[in-house]
């Protein structure tokens, strides 16, 4: 008798299993999403509140550590100057990134077509990469008349290498049997490039692009620090230097905040681009089956 009840209870549980399970999974994924965005926002909020309280409690002067609210005030008050600087920095970053893409991919294609070109030029690309940009920025500023062009060159130098290196690797990693197949069907070099090697290099290129996006911003900022100490410049780095000279620490923080937000925005944009381009076929963009 009792066993019959137990069996019925088991059956009841099993019978009702389907939809609650699916519901639970749905709820779980919803919770995951909430956690993914909610948790960092919560932590950041708590940290800001703690910061505000510490400054207020200890009456720390604003020229040493401004409170978050003061930074925000400064951001709003100085928006006119800061937004112009932000625009300038963005311009340099994206222009440098664009030139790095064209140059990096173009050179990678050349490298993969000719060992001669690769062997003669690759060492110089490495030299450009390993020389700290802070060390050569002052020189570039001396030799290039226009500050704008000098900043662009500096940002380009740091952004260009990851694209070149990754794209070269990608172009050379096309499946060998597919290459044989192209040969079998009498494909021209250009056809092999267009239909096989470039698509195969796409995930590698996008990986390099993600790194290069951040580096272009860093290059633009670092170069402007070098330029700013020489008294020229109007980007965000210059605003930081200028505010530092004037002990306007809240504005320094405001400029810093803008730089961070720009970096995050660049990363998210490039991640989204990568996802959109690869979602149909590449492992990195596919949900793993469970």
């Amino acid at each position: 008798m009792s066993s019959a009840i137990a069996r019925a209870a088991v059956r009841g549980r099993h019978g009702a299993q389907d939809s609650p399970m699916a519901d639970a999974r749905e709820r779980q994924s919803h919770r995951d999403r909430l956690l993914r965005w909610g948790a960092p926002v919560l932590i950041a909020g708590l940290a800001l509140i703690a910061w505000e309280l510490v400054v207020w409690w200890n009456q720390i002067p604003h020229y040493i550590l401004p409170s978050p609210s003061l930074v925000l005030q400064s951001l709003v008050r100085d928006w006119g100057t800061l937004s112009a600087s932000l625009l300038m920095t963005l311009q340099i970053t994206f222009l440098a990134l664009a030139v790095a893409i064209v140059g990096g991919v173009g050179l990678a294609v050349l490298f993969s077509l000719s060992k001669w070109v690769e062997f003669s030029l690759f060492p110089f690309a490495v030299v450009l990469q390993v020389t700290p940009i802070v060390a050569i920025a002052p020189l570039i500023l001396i030799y290039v008349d226009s500050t704008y062009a000098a900043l662009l060159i500096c940002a380009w130098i740091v952004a260009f290498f990851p694209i070149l290196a990754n794209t070269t690797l990608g172009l050379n990693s096309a499946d060998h049997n597919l290459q044989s197949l192209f040969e079998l069907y009498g494909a021209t070099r250009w056809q092999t490039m267009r239909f096989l090697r470039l698509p195969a290099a796409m995930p590698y290129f996008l990986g390099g692009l993600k790194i290069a996006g951040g580096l272009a911003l860093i290059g633009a900022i670092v170069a402007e620090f070098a330029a700013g100490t020489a008294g020229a410049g109007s980007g965000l780095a210059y605003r930081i230097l200028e505010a530092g000279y004037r002990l306007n620490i809240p504005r320094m923080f405001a400029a810093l905040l803008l730089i961070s937000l720009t970096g995050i925005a660049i990363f998210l944009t490039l991640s989204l681009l990568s996802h959109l381009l690869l979602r149909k076929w590449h492992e990195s963009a596919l949900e793993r089956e469970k």
Partner: protein
Amino acid sequence: MVEASLAAPPLAAKPTLVELQGVNKTFANGTVALENLNLAVGEHAFISLLGPSGCGKSTALRIVAGLAGASAGRIVWNGNVEIGDIGFVFQEPTLMPWATAFDNVYLPLRLQRMSRGAVEERVLEALDLVGLVDFAKAYPRELSGGMKMRVSIARALVTRPKVLLMDEPFAALDEITRFKLNNDLLDLWRSRRFTVVFVTHSVFESVYLSERILVMATRPGRVVDEIDVTAPYPRDDAFRTSQAYNDWCRLASAALKRAMGEA
């Protein structure tokens, strides 16, 4: 040469399509992959190269395809060979993961600058031959291992080749899928009248499929035995369980064992 003790009428002589004459292949590192390899492939024939791994059977296939050069010897084709006359199927499906099944099959025609619109029918027909016309828009990752191999075969057939070179195409598939594809390949071969050179290390597969088995020995790779499997076509699952099939398998196994003993 093992003359079939289960002697059936000898194969009707088929005009030769391609012949390897005294082919040697030495790799740059000094490895002798092939030595004095002679083989003739008749038109519309189904020939298997059977041998242990490392016996150079894949190399021989690549030489026939023109994907590798011979160090010595000649490859003689009866008549002109044009691009598209040779189809090649690898052990892996070797599909472009970024392209749909349709675009993968379209590739050989695209490389010959035929526009998509002009050959759409042909591509769909090739997909239809392997039973995948409904999956034209699917990406390789959405297909099973067997289906991917079918797409690979469709791609090789889309140019209507004279000869289909297959390099252990079904070795990575599960047995049920392999049997099914064996049957489908035989149907295609009989209906489309192309020639097949099939590389395998499976005695059972070579007996089931081919008219003639060339047994290869290793280091250096060479043909040491020829077995004519005279069992009639169509061969089907009944053949797979028949006594005759068993006898052919025993014969081929013995030849393979001898070949490996010689190595």
